[in-house]
């Protein structure tokens, strides 16, 4: 016995939801968009989903049970020393910490060059030079980002890489809200194996989101294939090890045996 059903050319509700929330890889997003443009039924389905979402957001009220769960989670995630420290110790510990913290906080700033696309120390390297540059498109204007480039929400960016030997490219970002994003491969797809070559444009453009501030971006060229989840988990683990006084900008590389380049992206609101 076989289970079959007529194949519908229309996207499922899951795909429509992902489309609506810009959660699809670029190619699939365009495919879905093209279908909706020529399918009145799907266009109507999308309108209904959007309206439903707007109605929900307007009247949304998080149930107490969920808020309680959040408060419990916040309590349990508080570091152990927060409850262990006694007030009378604080003065002595603060004084002793000043020297140590000064070293921790100042050292990276002394070794870090001007913000931008210049490589930073501490990364694995491949002889012959793996390099990555960022091409920015804002409206009709396109240019290659430099050290003094300010990014803006909505900018479209593409990566241009020079690769000395074949490998898999990953680009991980940690933004000011400490959210980890995998820019490449985009949308959690399997990484592409790139062949050696100079100034290759990596397929696909990325639109920058609304999170402002400084973002640490690490590009990795790996000989072996890694799962997207593994990359994200590795970055999150490094992030989790930072103390409250350290910033995400102090992360220079990930503990993976890949050639790595580090960038600092500075993002501000639309500027005239």
């Amino acid at each position, binding site marked *: 016995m076989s289970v079959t059903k007529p194949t519908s050319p229309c996207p499922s509700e899951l795909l429509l939801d992902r489309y609506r929330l810009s*959660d699809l890889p670029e190619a699939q997003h365009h495919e879905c968009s093209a279908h909706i443009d020529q399918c009145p039924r799907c266009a109507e389905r999308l309108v209904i989903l959007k309206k439903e979402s707007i109605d929900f957001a307007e009247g949304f009220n998080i149930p107490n049970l*969920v808020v309680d769960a959040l408060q419990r989670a916040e309590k349990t995630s508080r570091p152990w020393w927060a409850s262990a420290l006694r007030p009378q110790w604080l003065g002595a510990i603060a004084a002793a910490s000043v020297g140590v913290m000064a070293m921790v906080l100042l050292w990276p700033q002394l070794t870090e060059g001007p913000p931008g696309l210049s490589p930073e120390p501490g990364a694995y390297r491949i002889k012959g030079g793996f390099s990555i540059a960022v091409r920015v498109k804002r409206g009709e204007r396109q240019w290659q980002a430099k050290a003094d480039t300010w990014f803006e929400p909505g900018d479209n960016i593409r990566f241009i890489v020079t690769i000395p030997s074949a490998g898999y490219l990953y680009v991980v970002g940690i933004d000011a809200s400490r959210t980890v994003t995998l820019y490449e491969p985009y949308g959690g797809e399997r990484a592409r194996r790139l062949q050696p070559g100079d100034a290759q444009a990596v397929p696909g453009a990325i639109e920058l989101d609304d999170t402002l501030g400084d973002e640490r971006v690490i590009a990795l060229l790996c000989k072996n294939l890694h799962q997207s989840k593994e990359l994200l988990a590795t970055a999150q683990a490094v992030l989790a090890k930072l103390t409250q006084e350290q910033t995400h900008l102090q992360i220079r590389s990930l503990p993976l045996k890949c050639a790595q380049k580090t960038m600092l992206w500075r993002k501000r609101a639309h500027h005239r």
Partner: protein
Amino acid sequence: MRRAELDQIYRTHGSLVLRRARKILRDEDLARDAMQDVFVRVIKSGDDFRGEASMVTWLYRITTNLCLNKIRDAQRRRAKLDEQGPKVPEVKAPVADLRLDISRVLKGLPTELSEVAIYYYFDEMDQQEIAELLGLARRSVGYRLQRFVEEARVLLGYDLPEVSVQRV
């Protein structure tokens, strides 16, 4: 996770979670309970959800599984009541909607069959899409659907027709 982040996720994704729960449970109160459970799960997962390739897909799966748990819990409660008191014959609903009958079948089946059936019959996903969603081989999805149809035949007393459910 901070409150602002929870607000953001709830505002942008809450409607799809609630819609999905309503669709599977067909009961407003149960659906709202399920939505709470989903967001409690999101909170408990800590930062793990950031590792998911797609937040939407992840929420779809969690919602489906939590709704199936609710269906099974309700079935167990009913079975206990039946053991304790005189058995009330179940009134068979008129077959106005194929999904009503499928909902009956879901009650007694393991999650691996039920979730595939929901994606196939309720969501009208094709087997390839389900395979990608669940991280299974397409053949495994087909096999599970075959088993579901066989179970349904026993429970319902007729063969499930080829899918003709309209998308909601």
